[in-house]
């Protein structure tokens, strides 16, 4: 039986810990053994840190992977950024002998070693490929019947999505939402960026981008936007605060899953005007 560890990443573990808690609860209900490991660092972030030093980016990612290897755990990610970094670093270092030698020389300074013995997957790919839609459907206790859900994928999901789905017309995530009893809404910009990368340069412009996506969701008559990345989540939360006329609920996929599985109070119990919803655990 494969063992897993959940790599929540620094944004989820500090800013959106309810997503981590919900994910652990739902995985336990699926009888998936998830170990908690110590000593993580940031994955590291896939664009800005890599821009400064690709070597440091690979080395820090290799260190995180080596921690999972010591416990013989495959890595499940909850964040598109962590996914891109750990997936790409894992594959590149496995395949490139020189890079692996260089990384292990650096890791030797902290008495660690990259062996290339574990795999990295997003939670979504794991649910789709390893758990399967049939078993997931059996776990749904409270179908999300009143929900018409638009999916926002996030740019950094593409690195993995191309490995198991058609990135021009993705099906897997739609299936994962449908089995929860929700309807999936098509809208034209689901694969476009939320605008987050522009935020260091022009915050208002970046939020306008997110608001554009939300308008597309609203016009498609969706009442919920499902996201899979903490940066997208925070970006859309801010855009919803600035555009309160857009009555769209924002939900990280584990919230939808947890709600349908009965791990959470049903989303239907929350007010439609509760946008963006806040809970005690989300006061950051």
């Amino acid at each position, binding site marked *: 039986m494969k063992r897993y560890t959940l790599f929540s990443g*620094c*944004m989820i*573990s*500090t*800013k959106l*810990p*309810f997503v*981590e*808690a919900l994910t*652990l609860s739902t995985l336990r209900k699926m009888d998936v053994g998830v170990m*908690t490991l*110590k*000593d*993580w*660092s*940031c994955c*590291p*972030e*896939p*664009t*800005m*840190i*890599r*821009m*400064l*030093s*690709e*070597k*440091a980016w690979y*080395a*820090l990612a290799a*260190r995180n992977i080596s921690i999972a290897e010591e416990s013989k755990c495959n890595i499940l990610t909850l964040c598109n950024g962590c996914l891109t970094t750990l997936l790409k670093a894992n594959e590149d270092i496995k395949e490139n002998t020189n890079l692996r030698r260089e990384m292990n*020389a*650096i*890791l030797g*300074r*902290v008495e*660690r070693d990259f062996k290339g013995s574990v795999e990295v997957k997003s939670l979504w790919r794991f649910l789709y490929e390893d758990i399967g839609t049939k078993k997931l459907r059996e776990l749904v206790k409270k179908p999300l019947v009143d929900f018409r859900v638009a999916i926002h994928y996030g*740019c*950094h999901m*593409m*690195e993995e999505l*191309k490995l198991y789905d058609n*990135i*021009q017309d993705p099906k897997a995530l739609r299936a994962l939402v449908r089995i929860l009893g929700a309807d999936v809404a098509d809208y034209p910009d689901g*694969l*476009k*960026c939320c*605008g987050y*990368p*522009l935020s*260091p*340069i022009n915050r208002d412009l970046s939020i306008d*981008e997110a608001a554009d996506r939300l308008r597309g969701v609203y016009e498609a008559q969706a009442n919920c936007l499902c996201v899979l990345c903490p940066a997208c989540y925070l970006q859309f939360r801010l855009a919803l605060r600035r555009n309160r006329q857009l009555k769209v609920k924002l939900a990280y996929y584990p919230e939808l899953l947890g709600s349908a599985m009965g791990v959470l109070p049903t989303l239907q119990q929350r007010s439609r005007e509760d946008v963006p919803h806040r809970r*005690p*655990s989300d*006061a*950051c």
Partner: protein
Amino acid sequence: MWSALSKPASSISRVSLPELLRRRRTKLILKIFRETAELSFPTPVEIYRRLLALQESDYVKLFEHSKTLAGMLMKNGSLAVVTNSTKRMRKELGLPSLMFNQHEVKKITAATELLKIMGREK
């Protein structure tokens, strides 16, 4: 597009080391943005296309922002500070305490060119 990128090497040979490093980083970010933009082609990631067309001053902002993030990473082991509020929330949710290992992060980054690029090398 930033015109300095297309200048022949001889014309930039007298610029300072930090400036040369900055230009090298800019080339790298262009590579990263192009990779990301091309991944989702032909459904274009408009933002990354926009980033590819940024002005020099915007790149400087991005570069400074990335240095800030790297500084946080080296100081905390993460890009987010673990506040008392974070600790309280995690405890309420029954989640384990966060222990980012900044000690090992510092040792590893010291073995790379990161400190030099950030202008922190002694």
